[in-house]
């Protein structure tokens, strides 16, 4: 029974939106540290018995297939089978479903999902990664309006605002992964060089404030790249600037900065060409300016090098990175940057974009029993036994909970002699894209507090929930995307002079038909605004 209480308590805390409640919950749990692992087991046992009582409700057990991405160490067949067997003992009485796990390696995910969907295999629950409206217009997913009762607990848990992006044409099509869905931007850099420059990192509010620091480091150490690309060919200079730095936030209306076919800037309700805006011009001008001053790694538009490698090898100073997690000494120095001690500055939070909910789960059109799929889906958001078993595997075999384990802030360890590579089952790296992130071991404490703060208190776009359906403008979208790819990286990396290229860029966009897309987007946005 304890287990149930715990879930309800978390639920209550979230519904109240109160960090205090959540915090006290955490304190309570920490106090019980020593008996924690027993508690969890007990809890699981308790729900099992409570579930058995409901046995009679299910006339038949439906098979539900779950396709989810895993990284790296793919679970073994035997591992999957035993996790399925254990889960089914719990799920059959509780929800009348038999789960069939289909972990797909992340690098195969999109390809395989498209293939299994097109071939008619039973796909009950999966992630529509290429954008919800695309899957709706191709008929690959089904509306869940008839199953709202089944998923009501999950929906209530997240609240209406969080669910806004799950509706297409008024029908519910998905549940968004429950986790921090905007970023806190950080500037991560070498502590020694920052200290040498005598720069107070706490005074930083936005990326612009970094210039004196970068300049000082560059002058003292011309061989070290002051700002390194976070990902290949990407300094994050645009992503990190579109929210925090300008009076008017940019909402890309479902696109990304590098695929934007029309954005609203500010609360104007007017769709415009992002690349012709003053805001974009300011961003790429700064990139060019910094490149000319030698603050950016040169040739970043083609180099495969990334910040973590460059810093570790002594050739880089810092990079801009966005996290939905709180930064602390331990995380900053997790070894990713080699032997250098790292420090950080906070550079503002993102706007909660209309596209903030891109991690979602939907029900495939080949689902055999959508009601059963919805029941299982609900548990992925509300039942920590199910969630933790899918992420961490079976206790004793795939993980152990050490003494003094704090389920809110600690992560399980591997059993003696077992590593991430040899564990029969583990899907740990999938944590950020699965069901309810905050129910997982290690995510219920500080991470959750931070995430809830971002969810509740970050600036939200007026257009949150608007989804653009581009199926009438496909030809234009392809041509426009091609033009964007020609200029975007070069401009964002500061290697193309905006004074010379921006006009050409926008002329090409016009020729490719961006105006037609903007018009289409505008009329869809108007219709959406009229409804909301």
């Amino acid at each position, binding site marked *: 029974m304890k287990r149930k209480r715990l879930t309800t308590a978390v639920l209550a805390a979230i519904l109240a939106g109160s960090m205090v409640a959540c915090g006290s919950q955490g304190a309570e749990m920490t106090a019980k540290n020593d008996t924690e692992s027993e508690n969890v087991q007990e809890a699981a046992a308790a729900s099992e018995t409570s579930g058995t009582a409901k046995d009679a409700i299910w006339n038949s057990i439906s098979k539900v297939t779950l396709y989810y991405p895993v990284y790296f160490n793919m679970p073994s067949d035997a591992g999957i089978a035993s996790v399925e067997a254990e889960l089914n003992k719990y799920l059959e009485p509780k929800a009348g479903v038999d789960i069939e796990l289909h972990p797909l390696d992340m*690098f195969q995910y999109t390809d395989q999902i498209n293939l299994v969907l097109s071939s008619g295999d039973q796909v009950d629950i999966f992630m529509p990664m290429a954008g919800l409206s695309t899957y709706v217009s191709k008929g690959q997913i089904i509306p869940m309006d008839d199953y709202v009762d089944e998923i009501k607990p999950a929906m209530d848990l997240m609240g209406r605002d969080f669910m806004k992006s799950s509706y297409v044409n008024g029908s519910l099509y998905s549940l968004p992964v429950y986790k921090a869905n905007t970023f806190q931007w950080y500037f991560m850099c070498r502590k020694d060089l920052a200290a040498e420059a005598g720069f107070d990192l706490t005074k930083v509010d936005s990326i612009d404030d970094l210039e004196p620091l970068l300049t000082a480091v560059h002058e003292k150490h011309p061989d070290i790249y002051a700002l390194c690309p976070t990902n290949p060919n990407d300094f994050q200079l645009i992503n990190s600037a579109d929210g925090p730095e300008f009076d008017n936030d940019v909402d890309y209306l479902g696109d990304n900065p590098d695929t934007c076919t029309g954005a609203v800037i500010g609360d104007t309700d007017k769709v415009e060409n992002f690349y012709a805006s003053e805001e974009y011009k300011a961003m790429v001008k700064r990139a060019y300016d910094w490149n000319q001053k030698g603050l950016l790694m040169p040739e970043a538009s083609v180099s495969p090098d990334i910040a973590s490698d460059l810093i570790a090898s002594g050739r880089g100073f810092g990079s801009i990175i966005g996290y939905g997690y709180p930064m602390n000494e331990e995380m900053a120095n997790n070894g990713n940057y080699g032997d250098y001690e790292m420090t950080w500055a906070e550079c503002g939070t993102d706007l909660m974009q209309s596209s903030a909910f891109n991690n979602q789960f939907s029900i495939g059109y080949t689902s055999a029993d959508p009601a059963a799929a919805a029941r299982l889906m609900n548990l992925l958001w509300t039942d920590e036994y199910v969630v933790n078993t899918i992420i961490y595997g079976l206790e004793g075999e795939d993980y152990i909970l050490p003494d003094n384990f704090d389920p809110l802030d600690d992560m399980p360890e591997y059993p003696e002699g077992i590593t991430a*590579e040899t564990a029969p089952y583990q899907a740990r790296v999938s944590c950020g894209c699965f069901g309810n992130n905050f129910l997982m071991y290690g995510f219920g404490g500080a991470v959750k507090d931070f995430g809830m703060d971002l969810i509740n208190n970050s600036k939200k776009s007026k257009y949150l929930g608007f989804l653009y359906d581009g199926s009438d403008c496909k030809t234009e979208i392809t041509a426009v995307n091609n033009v964007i790819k020609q200029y975007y990286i070069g401009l964002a990396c500061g290697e193309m002079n905006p004074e010379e290229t921006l006009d050409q860029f926008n002329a090409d966009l016009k020729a490719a038909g961006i105006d037609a897309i903007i018009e289409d987007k505008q009329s869809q946005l108007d219709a959406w605004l009229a409804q909301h």
Partner: protein
Amino acid sequence: MKNKKRGNEKAFFIGASIVVIIFAVFCALPIILVISASLTDEKALVAEGYQFLPSKFSLASYAYLWRQRAMIGKAYLISVIVTFIGTSIGVLATSMCAYPLSRSTFRWRNLFTFLIFFTMLFNGGVVSSYMVWTQIFHIKNTIWALIFPNYLVGAFNIILVKNYYQNNIPVSLVEAAKLDGATEGQIFQKVMLPLSKPVIVTITMFSGLAYWNDWTNGLYYINKKELFSVQLMLNEIQQNVMLLRTANDRLGATAVNAADIPSNGVRMAIAIIALLPIMIIFPLIQKELIKGVVIGAVKG
């Protein structure tokens, strides 16, 4: 006269050797760069770029792959089995199919050549192939998924062999055999096959390389770790290493220690590991490519 001729031949031989050596160096230099990079300390690699000799020697990349040896070893076994079965069946079916197409007495030879060539031009795409192979033949997640789709028999190889039969094997040999009362099957087996060793070796190599290098069949049809081929496994490692290095997720650290993986070096070590079997097998088959066929001997 004889001396002059011999001198001429010698000069030709030396000239040919020099050009071939220059070309081989041209081919080998970038590969030496890859080998050197795979043996260079990760930090030195990023700081100083690729060098022909490791600026700071390190076995970390291979040590990382060695830690994955259980998986990679299994994958090697899968690749060897798949390559062996696929190539054997494929080469036999290909050379059997090419024989009638090379015979001018075969009535439908142009029609069939066209139908076979047509498959080189048009294809239905990945989705429809996937549907045929998984919905009708149910090969998903079986070893056959690595053997059957795409590579077993290809128009390109059939046409190569047909062309060889047609141009390098005298029709008189076939006619002589016919007069001796040999059936078409016997002619194929006793005359064509032994005389076409060079082209058979060639298509064996093409087919073997295609199987060895393939990872798309695995990408589409396999999601069981137990059936990953070497190339699929190496691709997976490479792509995931990159993902982890850039994603820097909170749990990433507990699943695998991303910082311990020399991502640049591993990429290069992977390229070398995939080359290994070719280095071992090549000397075994290459002599067939050079050896001239003395048709006269068979004729007599």
